[in-house]
Structures are given as structure tokens and as C-alpha cells.
């Protein structure tokens, strides 16, 4: 089979090419077949590749397909590296990706850009796989930028609207900011290790001592982390993600929940051995993660747009993941990626199903009582909600609790922040759930037309729900009698046999129990609080909002960050550009430097022309003066 694995990323690319070039003519059915077929094909191949990898002794399957862009001492092969880490991601991408493709068939079927949509979607899968499987940082960067492009295109999918293009542009540019970090990081790593092939870097890193203080690697890893914040929407580069909801809902599910936004975490896990060498970076990661988790969660408390709520929750969850990584819990962090992929995808698709039912109505306050109308959606959403609020026994509980536990070991403050964030999560999730499905319908017109979504949409919901539940098998914490399977599983990838392995020093089980109990209690408490505040309409919440007007406005307007950026960053830059152009370029360089000399020459010319008076006596005089000069020179 090995010789077919290159098709894993290439198949979706071919599908994308086909859909892009011929899709419009071929018709929707063909597009559907191709679009789904290629992803399914690469899913099958991925599975086989995964087990082939597991069969290998060192769990590392590296396939090379020749040189790409080598020159001088730089060598960048086309290569795929499949190991537990990338393998899992690969499965998630192809698997969840496939489900979402299926979902899209139903969701997009009346859109005239159908072919274009699947072209982009396939292209995204291709790039995402490149990002995951790339054997060298450069190749990963291809995927890294590629997914950015696809998210740009998909966010701006409804390009004839006003907001979608703006959101797409915003997403791409903010990602680009992060990409700068990655680029610089790569340059530093290349200068440090003389190679950009991941496996070589990790092997070399294995023999290095952790950096004391701020060193090269710290710089490099911090730069990479900047990139991660860009992709994974962490402070301060999270702004694009909420706007990204302008895209079609399946996109939000696939790109902005399940896969792309987790690539930041993936990058760090990929380079875990290097990050382990740089304690400073780890602290930064942890703190940024924690703060983001809380920050986003608070905003999520008051949003009205169902997708916006989910978006902020995504940001917040990503924060949790980084918190986990920062606490050296690569396995924990990645496990949360895994679980989150399932339940967040589920949540989005559920939301999508609701929106679809409500004829593209996204305002929570206009929903309500949909439980009766769309049971399938209701039940699957319930599963996902329980998972995300960390209801004991769910996969969400497992991953989040492991993270909080490690966070506590790193620094109690982190744990506190985490718990608060978790409470907020519980609150707004219940708020969302209640406002959507329970209570009385607030918009009867929409409610009357609401209906359960077609099977092509509900089926994926079901599968995802199953996945959400089953995911727990991978990593039920040791503290609760489970065997945190995923840690051992990822070990070959995260610890490249280096001397200083990632060390979450394990405290006692009592501690674990205690922490878990506290956080769970708080979480469930706020969940209940959320339910009761909204179960009979908006009255309660409005009253509360009236009580804390300032806080409410602040949260409602997302802390006014967008306005601040526009005012204090973008406008000055544009102004500066104008100054450079109008003042510096046109006036100083071109005017003073170029045209002024020309003008001066002309002025001199006018002056010298004055000597040509037309009076012969003057001519004779100038001759006489000339004669005087001649005589003087000759006689002196």
C-alpha cells in the first residue's frame, strides 16, 4: 500500500481541481460524487496508512518524493511523515472532514456556487493534510498558508455581500501576521539546526539541554507560538475567528472548529521536544492560553448570534488546549483537540441544522422551543453540550479535567482561571441550548416554517455524537482509574528520545479527585444557573443586564477590541502610508530630488538667456572681456 499513500493529500487536490475547472458544467450530482469520493478515498487510505504506521516498530512512516525547493545548503524534500500525532490528525481531518462534506451536500444543495464550494472544501482538505503530514517545516508551512487561503475563500464565499469579504480579508491578514512569526521561527531554526526537516530537528533537539533564560530556541519557539496564536485565534490574534462565522456553517464546523484552528496546537505538539527546551515559551503559552480561555468565555456569555457564541467558545476551548500544552501536557492538550474536534463540530453542525431550519435565522433570541420540531438535532446537541461543559464521564470532562489538573501543578492561578472559564462555558452553553430548544418559540413565523433537516445532515450529527461519546475511551484520566491511553500513544511523536522528556510531575490521586470535584461542581452549578436564567424567556437576563449596564455593554461589544484596532492600528498605518506617498515620495524624493533640479536648470537657462541682449555692443563687450581673460591667462 505504501506506494499509494501520496494520494492521501493529492486525491482531494484532484477533486478540487476537477470541481473548480469542470464542476459548473458537470452538474451538482457529479460534483457531489467527486467531492465526497476523493475525501472518502483519502479517508480509507489514511486508515490503512495509520495502521501501517502503527505496525512499524518506531511508529514512524516517512515517505519521500524527491526534492522540492532545495538550493545551497537548504534541502526541502516533498515528504510525508506519518506518526501517531499526524496520523490521528489525519484521521480526524479525513473522517470529520468527510462527515462535513456529507453534511454540506444537504446544507448547500440550493446554492448556485455548489461546485465552487466543494472545490474550496476539497482544497482545504488537501492543504490541511499537507500541514499535518508535511515532513518538513516548509511543507507544513505550505499547508499552514494554504488552509489560511481556503478559510479566506470560504469565509468570503458569499462575496457579493458586504461583510463576508471583509471577514475573509481580516482572517487572511491576521493569519498572515502569525505566519510572519512562523517564517521567522523557521529561519532561526534553520540557522540553528541547518535543516528544516522535522525529524532531523527533533533528533538534534533531543541532545540539547533546556535553555536557561532567553535563548535562540526561546526566540524561535516564541515566534512559532505567534504563528500558533494567529491560526488558533489566541490573544491577541483571535479577532478574526468570530467574524469568520460569515462563512457557511459547514465551513465553520470543519475549519473554524474541528481542524484548522487546532493547527496551532498541532504545530506545538509537533515540535514538542523543542518547546520542552524553552521553559519561558512554555510559561507564555500557558498564560496566553488561560487568559484567552477566560477572555473569550466572558464574551461568549452575552452574544445573541448562535454561531458567534460557538465561535467564542471555540476560542476559549483553544485557550484550554494551549493551557494544557503550556503545562507540558502535550498529550492532554492534544486530547482536548481530539475531543473538541468531535463535540464542537457536532455543535456547529447542530447549529447549522437549526439555522437551516429557521431559514438562516441566527439570532438566539428569535428561536426557542425547537425541541419538538427537530428532535434529532436536539438530542445530538444535548450530547455535545454535556461534553463541552465537562459533564462527568463525557470526553469533554476527561480532556478538560486533565488540563486543569496539569495547570494546577504548573501554577494554581492558572487552575483558578481555567475553572472560571469552564464555569462561563457551562453557563453560555446552557444559555444557548435553552434559548434554542427549550422554552416557548419567540418568533412564531419562523417557528412555524421550521422543520427537521434532511438525513444527509442529521446522519453526520448522529455519527459525530457517537464519536463524542466514544472519544473518552482514548484518554480517561489515570486518576479516575483510566489509563490515559493517548499519552503513551503519542509518546513516539512528542518525545523524540530526548534526555529531558516532557514531565507533568504527577501529584497524588487525592489532589486530582479534589480538583476535579471542585471544578465539576462549579461547572455544573453555573450550568444550572444558566438553564434557570433562560428557561422562561429573556426577562431574567435583561433584568440582569440592566443591573450591570457597563459590564454588559463591554461584553456585548467584545471589549471594544475591534474598534481599538481600527482606531489605533489600522488608521495610523494607512495615514502613514499616505504620508510616505504624498509627502515623501511625491514631494521630497520626486519633487526636491528630481523635478527641482530640472526646474533649477531651466531657471538658470532663463538667466543665461538674459545675456543674449541682442545689442551688438554687449556682444563686443563680452568678447573684450574674453580677450582680457585670454591675455591675463597668457601673460600671468
Amino acid at each position, binding site marked *: 500500500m505504501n506506494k499509494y499513500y501520496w494520494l492521501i493529500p493529492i486525491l482531494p487536490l484532484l477533486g478540487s481541481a476537477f470541481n473548480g475547472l469542470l464542476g459548473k458544467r458537470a452538474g451538482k450530482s457529479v460534483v457531489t460524487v467527486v467531492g465526497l469520493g476523493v475525501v472518502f478515498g483519502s479517508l480509507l487510505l489514511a486508515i490503512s496508512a495509520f495502521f501501517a504506521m502503527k505496525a512499524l516498530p518506531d511508529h514512524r512512516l516517512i515517505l519521500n518524493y524527491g526534492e522540492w525547493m532545495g538550493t545551497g545548503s537548504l534541502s526541502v524534500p516533498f515528504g510525508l511523515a506519518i506518526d501517531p500525532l499526524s496520523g490521528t490528525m489525519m484521521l480526524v481531518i479525513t473522517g470529520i472532514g468527510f462527515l462535513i462534506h456529507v453534511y454540506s451536500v444537504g446544507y448547500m444543495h440550493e446554492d448556485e456556487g455548489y461546485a465552487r464550494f466543494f472545490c474550496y472544501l476539497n482544497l482545504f482538505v488537501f492543504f490541511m493534510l499537507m500541514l499535518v503530514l508535511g515532513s518538513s517545516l516548509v511543507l507544513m508551512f505550505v499547508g499552514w498558508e494554504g488552509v489560511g487561503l481556503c478559510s479566506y475563500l470560504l469565509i468570503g464565499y458569499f462575496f457579493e455581500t458586504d461583510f463576508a469579504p471583509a471577514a475573509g480579508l481580516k482572517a487572511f491578514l491576521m493569519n498572515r501576521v502569525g505566519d510572519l512569526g512562523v517564517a521567522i521561527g523557521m529561519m532561526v531554526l534553520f540557522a540553528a539546526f541547518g535543516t528544516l526537516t522535522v525529524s532531523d530537528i527533533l533528533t538534534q533537539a533531543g541532545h540539547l539541554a533546556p535553555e536557561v533564560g532567553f535563548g535562540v530556541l526561546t526566540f524561535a519557539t516564541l515566534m512559532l507560538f505567534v504563528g500558533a496564536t494567529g491560526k488558533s485565534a489566541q490573544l491577541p490574534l483571535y479577532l478574526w475567528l468570530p467574524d469568520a462565522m460569515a462563512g457557511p456553517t459547514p465551513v465553520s464546523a470543519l475549519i473554524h472548529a474541528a481542524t484548522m484552528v487546532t493547527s496551532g496546537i498541532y504545530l506545538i505538539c509537533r515540535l514538542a521536544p523543542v518547546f520542552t527546551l524553552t521553559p519561558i515559551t512554555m510559561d507564555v503559552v500557558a498564560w496566553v492560553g488561560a487568559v484567552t480561555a477566560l477572555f473569550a468565555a466572558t464574551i461568549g456569555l452575552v452574544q445573541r448570534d448562535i454561531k458567534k457564541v460557538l465561535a467564542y467558545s471555540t476560542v476559549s476551548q483553544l485557550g484550554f488546549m494551549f493551557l494544557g500544552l503550556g503545562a507540558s501536557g502535550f498529550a492532554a492538550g492534544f486530547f482536548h483537540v481530539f475531543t473538541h474536534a468531535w463535540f464542537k463540530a457536532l455543535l456547529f453542525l447542530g447549529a447549522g441544522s437549526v439555522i437551516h431550519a429557521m431559514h438562516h435565522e441566527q439570532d438566539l433570541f428569535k428561536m426557542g422551543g425547537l425541541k419538538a420540531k427537530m428532535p434529532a438535532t436536539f438530542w445530538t446537541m444535548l450530547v455535545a453540550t454535556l461534553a463541552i461543559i465537562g459533564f462527568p464521564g463525557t470526553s469533554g470532562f476527561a480532556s478538560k479535567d486533565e488540563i486543569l489538573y496539569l495547570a494546577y501543578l504548573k501554577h494554581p492561578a492558572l487552575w483558578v482561571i481555567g475553572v472560571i472559564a469552564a464555569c462561563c462555558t457551562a453557563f453560555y452553553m446552557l444559555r444557548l441550548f435553552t434559548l434554542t430548544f427549550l422554552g416557548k418559540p419567540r418568533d412564531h413565523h419562523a417557528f412555524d416554517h421550521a422543520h427537521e433537516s434532511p438525513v444527509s445532515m442529521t446522519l453526520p450529527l448522529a455519527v459525530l455524537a457517537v464519536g463524542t461519546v466514544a472519544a473518552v475511551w482514548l484518554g480517561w484520566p489515570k486518576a479516575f482509574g483510566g489509563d490515559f491511553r493517548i499519552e503513551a500513544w503519542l509518546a513516539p511523536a512528542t518525545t523524540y528520545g530526548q534526555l529531558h522528556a516532557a514531565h507533568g510531575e504527577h501529584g497524588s490521586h487525592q489532589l486530582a479527585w479534589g480538583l476535579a470535584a471542585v471544578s465539576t461542581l462549579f461547572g455544573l452549578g453555573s450550568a444550572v444557573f444558566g438553564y434557570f436564567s433562560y428557561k422562561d424567556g429573556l426577562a431574567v437576563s435583561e433584568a440582569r443586564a440592566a443591573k450591570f449596564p457597563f459590564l454588559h455593554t463591554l461584553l456585548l461589544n467584545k471589549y471594544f477590541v475591534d474598534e481599538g484596532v481600527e482606531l489605533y492600528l489600522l488608521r495610523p498605518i494607512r495615514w502613514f502610508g499616505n504620508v510616505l506617498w504624498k509627502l515623501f515620495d511625491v514631494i521630497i524624493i520626486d519633487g526636491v530630488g528630481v523635478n527641482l533640479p530640472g526646474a533649477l536648470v531651466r531657471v538658470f537657462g532663463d538667466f543665461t538667456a538674459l545675456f543674449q541682449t541682442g545689442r*551688438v555692443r554687449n556682444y563686443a*563687450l563680452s568678447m573684450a572681456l574674453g580677450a582680457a581673460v585670454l591675455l591675463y591667462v597668457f601673460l600671468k
Partner: protein
Amino acid sequence: MTGMDAILQGGLQGYLVVALLLFAIGLATVLLRRTLLMQFMGVELMLNAANVALLAFARFRGGDAQATVFYLFIIAVAACEAAVGLALIIGLYRHRNTTDSDRAAGLKQ
């Protein structure tokens, strides 16, 4: 004999001084007078100055006949210049009805 005496007693220097002064006066005429005819006469004067110098040298070189021949040619030249120059002046006068060179300054800059 010293320079001044030589000049006053008609030595070679004397003639040269006369010649050069004539030359200067001729030049001055061209520079200071506006009437074209005057300027023309100034030019003639300059030529004459050259003649004086020429023949003076010739005399002190033991009466060199070449110089006289040259003088002959110079006279011819002077005549030619007179002819053409006066013709030009007349032509100009026909158009501008003046012989004031300052007022015949249509071509300038």
C-alpha cells in the same frame, strides 16, 4: 635709452604704443558708440593700428618688404569689409530706418 625716452623719441616702442593705443581707441569706439557707422569706423581704426605695428616692425627689421605687401593685402581686406559692412548697414537701414545698433535688437535671448 630707457623705455619712456624710446617711446617719446620714436623708437620702436613708440610706434607700438601708438599702435596699441589706436587699437584700444578703436575698440572703445565699438564698445561705446551706438551708431553702426561709428562702430564700423572703430573696426577700421583697429585694422590701422595693426598696420602701424606691422610697418614699424618692418622698419626695425631693416625694411622688410614682406610687411609692405601684407599691408597691401590688409588694405584690400579693409576695402572688402567696408563694402560688405556698409552694404549690410544700408540693408538694415532700409528695414529699420535707423543706424542705431541698440535699436536694431530684434534677435535676442
